[in-house]
């Protein structure tokens, strides 16, 4: 597990990595609590434990690069730099939410930071990322596109269609598999034939496996190489990162069976990505403990502020339900607003 990652990134970058990992951790911890208290409707899927994998990948991208994600959704936009307030308001269903309350946890998106949308459909956003890579290529604007997906999603056919298309057209796309070793209750090895990273070569691209996915710099290095390759016009890469989620698949889910054993969990908890990186930063003299403590306090405040932002944001008006289905009118399925509601007499 020793890793030759270049510990020579600018100090600010390294601190920003730690900050974003902390943001994800604290945001998700808070969201988890709010679900249990009934303050967030539905459920959420936390990225707690996977922060290094998320942030290492996101920070290998530039601000204008694109990204798509999945149901384990909060980490991705946070990792890409999205402000927390509108994300939290979205989880609660407020009008100040980044999607005006229409998306919720499963469908976060923040186009301002290149986040083109998380998908509640496992695998569903992979083709979208390929398309973003296609437009970069056609418009020659140098933007890279990264698709996050899980070990479970790695068995969706659209991934291989996407890898093939991106490969043959040399699109600037990175297929990033967040292998947290389980898909809901299902251990990856029981449903995966072969090794996910090994699937790259058959599609003409490098397939890299980051065994130490709890090391943010290791992830960053692997993804940076893929970004470089993409920007050079050499096409896509497949990067598989081994990681672990600490919480249950989703908050509030109670299964009669525990499909993960305690020892395994303990081993992973002992390799916490945020703790590891904190120690690393101190050991290498990048930052002092006090500085990191301050950063942590700062992030806690950011999350408090996000909740406050959400609190003061009103719920959307019911009429908002009829906005933004189409571009050209509030509700244009039929030319009669009412024809999706009742009989014509209602408005005539």
């Amino acid at each position: 597990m020793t890793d030759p990652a270049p510990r020579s990134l600018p100090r600010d970058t390294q601190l920003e990595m730690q900050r974003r990992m902390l943001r994800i951790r604290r945001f998700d911890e808070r969201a988890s609590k709010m679900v249990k208290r009934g303050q967030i409707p539905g459920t959420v899927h936390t990225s707690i434990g996977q922060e290094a994998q998320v942030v290492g990948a996101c920070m290998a991208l530039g601000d204008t690069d694109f990204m798509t994600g999945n149901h384990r959704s909060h980490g991705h936009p946070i990792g890409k730099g999205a402000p927390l307030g509108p994300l939290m308001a979205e989880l609660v269903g407020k009008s100040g939410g980044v999607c005006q309350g229409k998306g919720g946890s499963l469908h976060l998106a923040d186009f301002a930071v290149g986040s083109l949308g998380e998908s509640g459909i496992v695998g569903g956003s992979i083709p979208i990322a390929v398309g973003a890579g296609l437009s970069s290529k056609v418009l020659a604007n140098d933007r890279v596109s990264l698709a996050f997906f899980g070990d479970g999603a790695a068995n969706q056919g659209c991934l291989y269609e996407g890898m093939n298309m991106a490969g043959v057209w040399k699109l600037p796309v990175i297929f990033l598999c967040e292998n947290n070793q389980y898909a809901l209750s299902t251990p990856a090895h029981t449903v995966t034939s072969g090794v996910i990273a090994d699937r790259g070569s058959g599609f003409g691209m490098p397939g890299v496996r980051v065994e130490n996915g709890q090391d943010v710099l290791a992830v960053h290095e692997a993804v940076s190489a893929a970004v470089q390759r993409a920007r050079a016009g050499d096409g896509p890469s497949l990067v598989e990162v081994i990681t672990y989620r600490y919480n249950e698949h989703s908050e509030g889910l109670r299964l009669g069976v525990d499909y993960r054993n305690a020892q395994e969990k303990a081993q992973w908890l002992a390799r916490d990505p945020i703790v590891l990186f904190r120690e690393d930063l101190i050991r290498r003299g990048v930052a002092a403990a006090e500085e990191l403590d301050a950063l942590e306090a700062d992030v806690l405040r950011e999350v408090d502020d996000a909740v406050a932002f959400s609190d003061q944001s009103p719920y959307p008006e019911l009429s908002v339900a009829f906005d933004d289905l189409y571009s050209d009118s509030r509700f244009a399925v039929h030319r009669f607003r009412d024809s999706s509601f009742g009989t014509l007499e209602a408005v005539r």
Partner: protein
Amino acid sequence: MTVMSYLGAIGAAQKEAMLADERVVIIGEDVEANVYGTTGGAGKSRASEGDFLQQFGRNRIRNTPISEEVIVGAAIGAAMTGLRPIVDLSYSSFLYMAMDQFVNQAAKNRYMFGGQASVPVVFRSAMFYGLNTGAHHSDRPYPMFMNVPGLKIVTPAFPSDAKGLLRTAVDTDDPVLVFEACVLWGSKEEVDEREYRIPFGVGRSVRTGTDATVIAVSGAVPEAVAAADALAPEGISVEVFDPRTLVPLDVEGILDAAARTGRVVVADPAHRTCGAAAEISALISEHVFDALRGPVRRVTTPDVQIPFSPALEKQLYPNRVAIADAVRASLGVAAPTTGRDGDDSTGPDGSGGTPPSGQDAAVATGAAR
């Protein structure tokens, strides 16, 4: 008779079918761990007695990769070669992933191969609407499958129907899609614990009445009953008819129920355009036009996708208020001015104020007036 929940009845039917026929297998994501609650024992956990995995083993309980297209296709292929799979597709919103296999293989193979193929396979999925999970989990897609000849489509609204119809589905030599509305999961009923079947194409008269008829589908059935309850004190007697299977459809039963009162409301949680309500409305107009005393009214989910916010979602589905309003409209009577009945939508006790929880039927649910 035993009191069973909707999910419990489904689990019971699955177990009966597994015990009755070695060729029955269960295929789906997370079926081993009983994540979706129909492959467990009484205690709903793997450890508990009666657990499917323990009882039937991995050869017949097939925990799959997340690969809906090949799950569905392989189930079809297995059905064509000797098995009788029950496929658990968890949520209905994931069916699109396998649409080609449904339409081009499941529905067409017997026909296009001149009767050589038999495709005895059941596809179960839950319509997970009304739970604030947003547009990717809230679909009610049965109408698009109704447009595909060769599929059978089942929408049980009661635990006893869920059990009896599922047994019939497993017996059927054709592909059957069972849509289970999660809003019904909690409902309970006395159910015969012995084996029984309910035939396809025979609707259920849920309630008799003389003034108006509500044809209600799936999750709209209890709402229609509640609307009928609410209207009774106003002196309005409402018949509620649940077709139970949409393909084959109990056209005769629907027409009789419609013609009896001549005033018809169709309540259907699917999107409006080309939905089940459109078909039922068209059939009624076609066949018993002269018996109608006014237009057939549809109460459906409007043609928007499903928003996440609790302030937005629930009001969109056909509910008791909207159905009652539509019935009153069909009779040309006004709603009583004393406060609205049947408002049971509850908003989460969130920070920053409670989301608007009332069901403003006039704006939100499409009641005709």
